């Protein structure tokens, strides 16, 4: 990714909890106008990295977010960024209308009118007490609050957990069609990778605290090659040391980092590797063979 007009620049970034490194010497750059998927298994360091991005954990190395040091300039940074650390964390004692009023006083770029407009698309009523909302409705309320912030960077940690598929789809459509304007960037972590793959422009993959991939989806399509093939040529495919072998409709496929040898290419048909397959390939031991599952 280009460093021109980067919203986030991280160099040799590490976060420790005692002796454990939750984020381990990672470097990446996020330009403006991108939708970045942050992928990783549970405990891979996604939440810690997001907290470091908004100055809630101390990080070693160099980190600049919107041109600021997140730890030292957390308040100024959060004036220009919005962040969902988790779902179902709104204060339960407050009514939604009062929360909107408070947000209007606490965030300089928050639009109460916009949040009310977004809430009208949901089943959440302004007079509802947060504690009485279902988990899904609480998520809808939180998303409506955050999406009403005129920020340059949105950081979302599993934002749609607990939402039904229609609400998730509606949120992502709103995010892409209404919030993203080519200048703003979104960093989103989720386990529902298939749902957001089409929305992403870039992907960061973490595995045990290490960054195993930082790439745009255009480059990903160019770099990684998947070949679907018949079972009869499985041994030849395996001999070419693919990153991953997995099942696809009507047969098997092998995923390669870079172009496979020509004689191997002739044995199969090139297909587009999915983000999930790539995620599995890069975050599991390559010798594992998913065709056996």
């Amino acid at each position, binding site marked *: 990714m280009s460093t021109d007009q980067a919203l986030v620049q991280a160099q040799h970034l590490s976060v420790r*909890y005692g002796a454990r490194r*939750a984020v381990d010497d990672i470097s990446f750059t996020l330009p403006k106008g991108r939708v970045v998927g942050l992928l990783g298994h549970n405990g891979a360091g996604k*939440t*810690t990295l997001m*907290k470091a991005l*908004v100055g*809630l*954990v*101390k990080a070693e190395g160099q980190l600049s977010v919107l041109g600021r040091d997140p730890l030292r300039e*957390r*308040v*100024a*940074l*959060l*004036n220009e960024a*919005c*962040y*969902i*650390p*988790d779902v*179902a*964390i*709104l*204060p*339960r*004692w*407050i009514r939604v209308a*009062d929360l909107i*009023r*408070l*947000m*209007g*006083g*606490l*965030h*300089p770029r928050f639009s109460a009118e916009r949040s009310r407009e977004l809430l009208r698309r949901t089943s959440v009523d302004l007079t509802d007490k947060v*504690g009485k909302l279902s988990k899904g409705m609480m998520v809808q309320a*939180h998303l409506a609050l955050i999406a009403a912030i005129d920020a340059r960077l949105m950081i979302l940690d599993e934002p749609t957990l607990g939402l039904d598929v229609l609400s998730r789809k509606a949120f992502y459509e709103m995010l892409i069609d209404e919030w993203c304007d080519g200048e703003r960037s979104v960093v989103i972590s989720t386990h529902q990778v298939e749902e957001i793959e089409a929305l992403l422009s870039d992907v960061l993959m973490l595995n045990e605290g290490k960054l195993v991939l930082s790439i745009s989806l255009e480059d990903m399509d160019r770099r990684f090659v998947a070949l679907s093939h018949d079972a009869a040529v499985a041994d030849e495919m395996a001999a070419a040391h693919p990153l991953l072998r997995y099942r696809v409709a009507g047969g098997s496929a092998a995923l390669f980092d870079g172009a496979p040898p020509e004689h191997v290419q002739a044995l199969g048909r090139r297909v587009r590797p999915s983000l999930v397959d790539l995620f599995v390939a890069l975050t599991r031991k390559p010798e594992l063979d998913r065709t056996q599952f």
Partner: protein
Amino acid sequence: MNPILPLMQREWLQHRFAWALLALVPLGLALLALSFAQVGVGVDVDGDTITEVTDARMAPVFALGSMAAGSGLLFVILWVASLIIISGLARRDHGDRSVEFWMSLPVGHGTSLAVPLLVHLILVPAAALLIGLAGGWLLSAVLVGRVMGIAEWFTLPWGALLGAALAVAARLLAGLVLATLWIAPLVLLLILANAWFRRWGLVLLVVGIGIGGWVMDRAFGQPIVTDLVRDLLVNAGRALAGASGGGMVIGKDSEPDLVLGQVPGWAWQDFVAALRQLASPLLAGGLLFAAGCFALLVDWRRRGASAAA
């Protein structure tokens, strides 16, 4: 954007029903009791015989006493409630995990802690004093009306009476700020103890101070710990009222109107005496200690954000 007012508003939204309940129920009960119970005010004239007071000249004293009682009652109730609420300040948003939501907003850790302290230690008790004063005014109507007849209440010297009541209220409000300075080290230490040790904070603090004081006294002959705590509390009390060493000197046959006229002067002198007491190494040390506790609380909150990851 200044987050102080919104953070105050947050306290109001979160605690308004409890505050209303704590203010209105005691006043309502007092009004009911004065309205329907048998009421009589007596003076022990010879150490044995209680003589009922019905002299109309005492009506201003009854009225002022009602207002003082109303203010005092609400002040004590809401101040104690505020202390209980504020003692759990550091962990109060952890139960529903909303602390993560609050920390995702552009508000500094110090501001997030300081504003509730201001609200609960100063503004709520101050409001309690003023509401109690207004409630006491209603109580005075009932008390004077039942003991001497309501006509006496309407003929009270309201100018002198309200002047005296406002002078006392102003003295108490100013004293509240000064008293808060004196008890700040103890309050912040309690909040910090509750942050570090959860529900055991108060127990450990009391036991720690008790044992520490006992050890220092018995082993070294220096009851410094208990002396410090006692001096802070005594000075806080004096800062609130009575800093000049006692109440007003009222002659046996003083006219109530004259006494009321002396109240503003006494209140001013008492406040000046309370101000003079601020020039104390104990207070300076206490405030330094309180600032240290506050810094540790801010650090604890910051580390809490990390620990939640």
